[in-house]
């Protein structure tokens, strides 16, 4: 058995198991940690698919930044209350699982009809990137996709500003009368 096959069959079940565990865990923090495990397994898949740059980006951006943000918000909102597990819609959970399974079978059939289960990746991927994957990706990014790249920088700035505006506390402006009342009360306390 070739080495990359072994790596795939080790990490694919872990990825699926972590995804399922994310769904069934009652504690939201545990669910988030299983999602980190799943992201790590997907990063290994990127390595198998000859994308070491995306492997690093996946670990830094997803498993690092995004999941830390998630955990931070979970802690901020409180985790001590467990979720309500009663169903409000009739048969919501079984129907969702059946629909998910049907969706999976549909995509599986599409893959079978499209490329077949035996198609292996062609050789010559290394020839595309003579000085390494990161440089080759940068070459495509900064030549063919330079304008979209610049647009994403605008998107990130807008997102950062939007997050600050959305999450800030509304500071009520104080009228002069309230200010006078407060000073008067403070003065009365000092004299008393």
């Amino acid at each position, binding site marked *: 058995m070739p080495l990359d096959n072994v790596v795939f069959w080790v990490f694919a079940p872990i990825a699926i198991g972590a*995804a399922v565990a994310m*769904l069934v865990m009652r504690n939201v923090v545990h669910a988030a940690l299983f999602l980190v495990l*799943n992201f790590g397994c997907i990063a290994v898949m990127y390595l198998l698919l000859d*994308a070491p740059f995306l492997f690093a980006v996946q670990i830094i951006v997803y498993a690092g930044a995004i999941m830390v943000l998630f955990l931070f918000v979970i802690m901020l909102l409180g985790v001590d209350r467990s979720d309500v597990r009663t169903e409000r819609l009739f048969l919501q959970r079984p129907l969702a699982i059946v629909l*998910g399974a049907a969706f999976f079978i549909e995509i*599986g059939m599409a893959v079978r009809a499209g*490329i077949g289960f035996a198609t292996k990746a062609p050789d010559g991927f290394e020839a595309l990137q003579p000085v390494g994957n990161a440089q080759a990706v940068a070459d495509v990014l900064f030549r063919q996709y330079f304008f979209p790249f610049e647009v*994403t920088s605008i998107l990130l700035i807008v*997102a950062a500003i939007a997050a600050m505006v*959305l999450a800030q506390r509304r500071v009520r402006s104080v009228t002069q009368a309230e200010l006078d009342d407060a000073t008067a009360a403070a003065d009365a306390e000092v004299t008393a």
Partner: protein
Amino acid sequence: MRTPIAYFLVLAAMLFSIGTVGVLVNRNALRIFMSVELQLNAVNLTFVAFARMHNDLTGQVLAFFSMVVAAAEVVVGLAIIVSIYRRRRSVDVDDVREMRW
């Protein structure tokens, strides 16, 4: 590389389906959001798998863009969840019904 590309596609399909079930089943906004992240990652895996199959780096660049957009989406989405929580002390999506008729 001896692993067939279809294996990666099937793995991505399975992760996407699990994410779909998570979105349909959960009512906690944070859990729904995590399931959406799972779906986004499954699609990224498909991008990279097809990039390898067609010997074309465009798929990897698109996955990179998708990660950037996902980061922006997480920032805004979590800010919305925090502000909803401030207003109504709950992240249950059934409680947020102002925009429903």
